[in-house]
């Protein structure tokens, strides 16, 4: 009998007998399910945060900041900002005006709905063409702010997270009442965003420079052309970056932290599950000493025995992984969290489930290695004497 047929034969016997070793099999499945479940649900934080930040950002969007300043902390003079409009490669709106958004960020405070704590909340002053720049920004109630008026527009998530963002509520900025005149929704974005007219906000806070300038290009390929003319213009002291990269840079630290924590916990749990699987497999091998010795006696090779045991342990790990990933999905998918002051929804994605299955296979393989070697080395004579 060839080694391949031997392998298939033993594997078939193994799997048929799984129901008789329910305890051991369930131990492997549940152990792996818990480890994979924990790994997947922890990693879903990082994935969710990334999805929210990067997912909504279009590849043709570009951010400008003043040379040397970090993104979102620039000081861009008005004349420079206006010059940006004449650069090549910029998409035009219906009125054939280039889609260039000027923004200024100022600090304010909001009170958390649940805890009542006051937390820092930036208010984004923007030119009204923000709706051209991000069409996914949808007005859900009220209207947009009017240029020149002290008015605010808040995202739906502000209403959920903080008090005082209902339609018609008034917020005090620099001793002036700013009513909330509209609510917007930005598809899937959980972070609270408050918008105001940039010029009004800047004069209220006696600012003369913009914090950031955002540009929508005709296509991502126009970036090089746009950047070259930006850098060759001696009157502009600005740096450009794909908005996607700029945002990713902002969240690099948070993502590194989330991933470190996830992998740390996932690894520890995987080691635990592997040890559990190893113990169960040893028990299985011990329980089958006679059977294995008989197989050896009638001419089955030890290679086939090792391979079939390994295969069995990996096959037992897979339903565990599916169970774990499924539980993670049921419990945590789309759950809103705000660790470290940043709100997003957890995302349990198919690729995470796949990663979980890969880990499970590794756990099955490593956990099965030593027991299967012992199975192959069962001394035929002593084992048969025990009959």
């Amino acid at each position, binding site marked *: 009998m060839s080694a391949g047929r031997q392998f298939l034969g033993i594997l078939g016997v193994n799997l048929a007998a799984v129901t008789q070793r329910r305890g051991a099999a369930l131990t492997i499945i*549940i152990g792996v399910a818990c480890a994979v479940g924990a790994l997947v*649900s922890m990693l879903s934080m990082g994935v969710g945060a990334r999805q929210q930040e990067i997912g909504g950002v279009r590849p043709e969007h570009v951010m400008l900041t003043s040379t040397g300043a970090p993104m979102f902390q620039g000081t861009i003079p008005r004349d420079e900002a206006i010059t940006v409009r004449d650069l090549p490669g910029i998409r035009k709106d219906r009125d054939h005006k280039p889609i260039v958004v000027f923004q200024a960020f100022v600090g304010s405070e909001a009170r958390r709905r649940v805890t009542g704590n006051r937390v820092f909340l930036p208010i984004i002053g923007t030119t009204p063409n923000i709706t051209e720049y991000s069409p996914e920004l949808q007005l859900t109630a009220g209207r947009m702010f009017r240029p020149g008026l002290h008015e605010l527009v808040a995202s739906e998530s502000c209403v959920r997270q903080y008090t005082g963002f209902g339609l018609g509520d008034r917020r005090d900025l620099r001793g002036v009442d700013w009513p909330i005149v509209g609510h917007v929704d930005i598809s899937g974005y959980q972070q609270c965003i408050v918008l105001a007219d940039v010029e009004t906000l800047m004069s209220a806070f006696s600012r003369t420079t913009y914090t950031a300038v955002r540009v929508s290009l005709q296509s991502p390929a126009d970036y090089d052309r746009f950047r070259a003319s930006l850098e060759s213009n001696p009157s502009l002291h600005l740096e450009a970056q794909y908005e996607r990269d700029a945002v990713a840079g902002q969240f690099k630290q948070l993502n590194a932290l989330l991933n470190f924590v996830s992998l740390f916990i996932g690894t520890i749990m995987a080691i635990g599950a592997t040890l559990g699987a190893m*113990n169960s497999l040893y028990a299985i091998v011990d329980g089958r000493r006679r059977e294995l010795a008989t197989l050896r006696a009638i001419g089955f090779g030890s290679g086939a025995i090792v391979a079939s045991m390994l295969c069995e342990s990996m096959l037992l790990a897979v339903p565990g992984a599916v169970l774990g990933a499924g539980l993670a999905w049921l419990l945590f998918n789309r759950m809103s969290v705000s660790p470290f002051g940043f709100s997003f929804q957890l995302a349990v994605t198919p690729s995470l489930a796949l990663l979980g299955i890969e880990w499970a296979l590794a756990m099955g393989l490593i956990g099965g290695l030593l027991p299967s070697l012992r199975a192959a080395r069962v001394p035929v004579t002593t084992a048969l004497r025990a009959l």
Partner: protein
Amino acid sequence: MRFLPLIWSGIWRKPGRTVLIFLQVSIAFALFGVLQGLKTGVEHLIAEARADLLLVRSRAGFFANPLPLGMLEQIQSVPGVKVVEPVELFLGTYQRPTQRVGIVAIRPDDTWTTAFTYSISPQALNAFRKTRTGALALVDVARKYGWKVGDHIPLQTNIAQRNGSKDWTFDLVGTFDDSDIGAGRGYILINFSYLDEARLTGQGTVQHFNVAVSDPRRATTVADEIDRRFANSANETRTESLREMAQTSMQSIGDLNFLIRAVVGAVLVALLFATATMMMQSIRERTPELGVLKTVGFTSRVVFLLVLVEALAVFVLAAVFGLALATLVFPFASKFVPGLTMPGIVVGLGLACAALAALISSALPAMRAARLQVVNALAER
């Protein structure tokens, strides 16, 4: 006591199995220790943070709206205020753009240390006061970059000097330590008067004021009174104690509590299941031996207890080992969450959990062992 050898030999009946269970339990409790240590560490930090030190900053947030130095007298005049010190903050980089060093400019007058959480040796304090361009480095920073007292430290910043240069050089005159964790572990102290005279713009403004109050119990009242004085002015303030600030920044981690609890729950469930099936298997294999024990006069109760104690011993020892492992991880994890600790309560809770897990997982097998009929047990031989 006379049962000890019996229990011992029971534990080591299958050494491989026992070692694996031991490792599995250890790992579970190492994870438990790290996660719980994180949680209690955070709570501990909040409790430790000073409630009697207030920070007065602009309501518009840090860096958005510098406060004029003249506010100092107004704050000083609020009843209950003991000491007010101006603090200016900016960021520098050392040699490489990734090596960031925070720069905290303060005025080293006679009383300044009472408004801060620093511990500085008298010599360093004296040298700092005498050297205009002097700097004190947090011990962590000095160690990281290998700075020695007497070194000239060049830092690149965003703040221009009068001569146009954005590079500043400070003379290291000593090191200090900070008991507060809110400010991070990577900054140096410099003289505010030197900075303010040498810089091109922003003279006479600071990021915040540190305030020490004379009666810690009245800290909240004093904070509210300071904010009230500047309400509706161009420089509206927000006054918080260091403890309040720690609370706010740490609360965000609290949102993860549910996740942490779910993970710990998953660990314990997996562990319980694995060990319970192992114990069952073990009792099944030992049926004849237990039968012999009963034949020679061991009562069902003693057999029941023997099995329980065996599990208890393995679990508790493994939990101790696991919690010890967790403390080894702490220095590593402190990169992300400073001040991790393993207080007695976590150790106690861990051991209690271990005992509970041992009892639950061995109760069924122990019951089975106790109910064994001698005849049937021996027949299996």
